[in-house]
């Protein structure tokens, strides 16, 4: 039944809903949900947009959907190889409309930490590190991130380390979609099986929710597109995302 969300489809589909007609949209390394969101949007929406990715692909037509979001197969069927220096320069000069970026911790201003849990110099957990964020988040026209866990450990009042500032335009978790308004994240919608109360309870930072509603269910085409991308449910299984 297409009107039911799975935690996995909720994240991928709501990331896809940030994509706008005619824009240049980018997905990077270590970003399977963002990669799937871009490929889903190509199948589920009528409008055209320019999908570029970290594998150098420009409007690619990959013959398979890779486990790794930087797999060279993502440049298959591309008319060009638009490699790393090129897409970063495009972003810093203002030509990247929408950039999907990963995060470990997000704060109420949409700033991110991907460097370390605990003190950077004596980390409890050494995280992957800087990546695209510090340069892309402040320079992309819009940046959007996701967390597969929604908790006070991931959606925090204070970041252990500010890897990237500039502020996410949108954040998607298994139970909520946030968008930025006047430099703060506000709740746009919540998972219909969740609630405003639950989102508040599991979020470390305070946020406004005046206009928040239950997230509209996936459309037939969104559901069909995701099924086509993940027919065996492999990506959904591997992602191991739970509502609670």
């Amino acid at each position, binding site marked *: 039944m297409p009107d039911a969300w799975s935690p996995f489809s909720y994240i991928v589909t709501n990331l896809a809903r940030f994509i706008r007609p005619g824009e240049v949209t980018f997905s990077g390394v*270590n970003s399977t949900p963002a990669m799937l969101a871009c490929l889903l949007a190509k199948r589920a929406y009528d409008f055209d947009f320019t999908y570029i990715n970290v594998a150098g692909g420009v409007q690619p037509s990959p013959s398979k959907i890779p486990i790794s979001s930087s*797999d060279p197969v993502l440049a298959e069927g591309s008319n060009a190889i638009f*490699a*790393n*220096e090129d897409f970063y320069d495009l972003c810093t000069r203002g030509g990247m409309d929408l950039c999907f970026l990963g995060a470990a911790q997000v704060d109420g201003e949409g700033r991110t930490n991907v*460097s370390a849990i605990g003190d950077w110099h004596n980390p409890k957990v050494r995280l*992957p590190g800087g990546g695209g964020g510090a*340069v892309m988040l402040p320079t992309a026209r819009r940046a959007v991130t996701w967390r597969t866990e929604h908790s006070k450990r991931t959606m925090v009042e204070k970041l252990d380390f500010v890897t990237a500032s500039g502020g996410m335009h949108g954040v998607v978790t298994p139970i909520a979609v946030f968008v930025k308004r006047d430099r703060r994240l506000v709740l746009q919608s919540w998972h219909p099986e969740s609630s405003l109360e639950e989102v508040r309870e599991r979020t470390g930072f305070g946020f406004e929710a005046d206009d928040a509603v239950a997230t509209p269910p996936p459309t037939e085409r969104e559901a069909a597109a995701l099924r086509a991308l993940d027919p065996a449910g492999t990506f959904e299984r591997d992602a191991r995302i739970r509502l609670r």
Partner: protein
Amino acid sequence: MPTSKIVSLHDLAALVPDGASVALGGSFLHRGPFAFVRELIRQGRRNLEIVKQSPGYDIDILCRAGCVAKARAGIVAMEGNFGLAPWYRRAVEKKQIVLEEHACMTLTAGLRAAAFGVPFQPVGGVHGSDLAALNKWAKVADPYGSGEEVWVIPSIKPDFAVIHANEVTVHGDTRVYGTFNWDRIMTRAARKVLVVAEKLEAVEAFQARPELTLVPGFMVEAVAIVPGGAWPGSCWPSYEVDYPEVERYMDTEGSLDEHMARAPEIGVSQVA
């Protein structure tokens, strides 16, 4: 014309001394010079500085074997579904190695400064990031009065750039298919360029389409031909990631020697 630049993998790795700064090509599990990295381990290299925007298997196995003193990196992970790089993570948390954490583009800016022959390179963004204070980066005001301030990254000049390529000529001319990731700027920034290639190609083929050459031979110090040398990673379009083997590598019970023994460069007679 110059004489052949083809050497064995052993002799190629032997060019890198203990303590050298080495930039590694490719990204995560894709087109990394992994056979070369394993050869460094076999030769017991120590105190290396590894420079790479997105290292994974390479920095992890080098840390696992105790070859690394310092990492200058943007994002470090195994990728795919494997998450963090466990031996790298432990090495950093236990302070066995020094980490200079970058954004991928700040590391690239440092490489650009070296490639351009200037002491520093301005980079977009970085504003509001704790990485700036962490690395003591400087901010420079636009001397042309725009009022803009820009972060500048000091020159990063590795002793070696080592890349894994699809095809080379006997003179060291190098082709990469699909994305070349950061390999272009690495080969321009480093003092010396070493190449591991899947295949030796005829000079005539390169002359027929010189636009495809990423690195001209005169910039290349030496080359080793190692088919499958990016294993267990991918080398487009020849082969994909060997995920089962990466899983075996990740198994903390499994031994490094067993993994190393399964490498394709073992026993393969190399063109030399």
